[in-house]
């Protein structure tokens, strides 16, 4: 195993993207993800890649569209308000079946909001992210190591299924440093016969486009795209369980919330409370079955979120009313404390489900 180095989550994403073969980065600075752009600005020119600070987020995402159409691995990164600006381009890419990696290091919203960590773009990320019928693969890292590994995975899945992958992180994950090993499996290269790279007079033109004026044709492409989404749902669900074997209470949390929850779970276990954690790693596709299975054995699920409660809706859909699903949250840039989560666990253990 290679030597571990300390890296910020944002830097780990950038370095992993380069390792994954990404040579094109387009972005516009915004806290708390600017280190990604800074890292790319330093590294890309040295390895024959392109770093370009665009005039806006909208310009950046359209540059991503262009490079992706040419069949190259490409990415952009931003934070919440910047991702909203990219929404149009993200939808166009979905309509044109273009792969790319989009990183959202979330901050508090709505509006310009604040710059402290948040998970309140869950709805935006998992329910499409812009207009039209579509999904992105949404990956939620909970360590700097995962920031790196899921970046590689994100490129791979995007190419494999011709979708955009999103890394949904938050300010804490982006800013924190942890030991990381960059000695991991590299992303598989995928053939892209659809790319617009010039016909050299040898083949029919490839067309990359999201405009379908005939409704029956648009319906057909949408249905075909959702057939692909079904395959993603079957093959690509990822989650991690912690102390769930004998759990009577289940915490659901991703990213930084899962880290905080682990502290609370360890403390509750010391007090003899049987509590475990399901940590979704893919937020779309959502680990529905893991929660449905848990609902057969636990008496309550507590969703710990840095939002007013967004993932909780997917958990409720997954358990279909079988057990109460309650919320333990902070929002606007605040982070739940382990004590707050512990209190929710104790409350659940005593039968409270408000």
């Amino acid at each position: 195993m290679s030597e571990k180095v300390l890296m910020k989550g944002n830097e780990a994403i950038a370095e992993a993207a380069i390792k994954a073969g990404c040579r094109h980065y387009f972005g516009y600075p915004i806290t708390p993800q600017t280190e990604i752009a800074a890292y790319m600005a330093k590294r890309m020119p040295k390895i024959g890649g392109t770093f370009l600070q665009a005039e806006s987020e909208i310009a950046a995402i359209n540059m991503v569209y262009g490079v992706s159409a040419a069949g190259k691995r490409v990415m952009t990164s931003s934070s919440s308000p910047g991702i909203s600006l990219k929404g149009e381009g993200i939808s166009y890419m979905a309509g044109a079946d273009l792969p790319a990696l989009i990183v959202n290091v979330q901050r508090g919203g709505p509006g310009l909001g604040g710059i402290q960590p948040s998970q309140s773009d869950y709805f935006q990320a998992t329910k499409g992210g812009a207009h039209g019928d579509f999904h992105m693969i949404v990956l939620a890292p909970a360590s700097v190591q995962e920031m790196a590994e899921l970046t590689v995975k994100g490129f791979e899945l995007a190419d494999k299924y011709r979708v955009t992958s999103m890394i949904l992180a938050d300010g804490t994950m982006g800013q924190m440093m942890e030991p990381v090993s960059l000695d991991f499996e590299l992303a598989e290269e995928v053939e892209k016969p659809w790319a617009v790279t010039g016909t050299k007079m040898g083949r029919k033109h490839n067309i990359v486009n999201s405009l379908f004026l005939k409704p029956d044709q648009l319906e057909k492409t949408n249905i075909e795209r959702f057939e692909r989404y079904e395959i993603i749902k079957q093959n690509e669900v990822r989650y991690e369980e912690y102390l769930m074997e004998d759990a009577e209470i289940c915490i659901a949390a991703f990213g930084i919330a899962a880290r905080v929850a682990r502290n609370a779970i360890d403390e509750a276990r010391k007090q003899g409370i049987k509590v475990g954690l399901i940590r979704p790693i893919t937020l779309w596709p959502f680990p529905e079955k893991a929660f449905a299975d848990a609902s057969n054995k636990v008496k309550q699920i507590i969703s710990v979120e840095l939002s007013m409660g967004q993932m909780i809706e997917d958990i409720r859909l997954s358990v279909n009313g079988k057990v109460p699903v309650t919320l333990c949250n902070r929002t606007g840039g605040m982070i739940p404390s382990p004590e707050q989560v512990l209190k929710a666990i104790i409350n659940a253990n005593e039968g409270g489900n408000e």
Partner: protein
Amino acid sequence: MSTTQYLFAGFGGQGILFSGKVLAYKGLTDGKNVSWLPSYGPEMRGGTASCSVIISDTAVGSPIVEKPDVLVAMNLPSLDLYEERVKSGGIIFVDSSLIDRKVKRTDVTAYYIPATKMASDNNISKLANVILLGKVLKETNGFTNEQGVIDALKKVISAKHADMLEINLNALKLGRDYKGE
């Protein structure tokens, strides 16, 4: 099995993040699990900056230090803000050339190091943070692996500034050997 949570706090520009990083690397060279989390945003520019470092035998859960075992305070607002949060039995390191009050808590150990004055007396005026870190490492048994301290410094001081290694090491030793209160 143990976990130690450190909180470094002071003004932006005092080298709070640097100290934390050296400590985190020291933990890494000792084979521990570590995390480092800065406060970020406008407070970096003149206001109160802080840095959470966790060094643990087990996996680090939340990287946010709310109740530190060890507090390093480099200005009065930081001591005012964080003193109450230190765990009972914890340690507070105070830069006594910048903070003219004593620690009020009686259930913690306090060390007063005139680090900023020591730094200027020794012509290393920017290294008060490193002097303080030397004392922190000394009192938390960090110097039992002195090579680890040197290795950690080497990791944090980039190759471009390799000539600064010696001077940083001297600053660490100044702090380590300080025999004041």
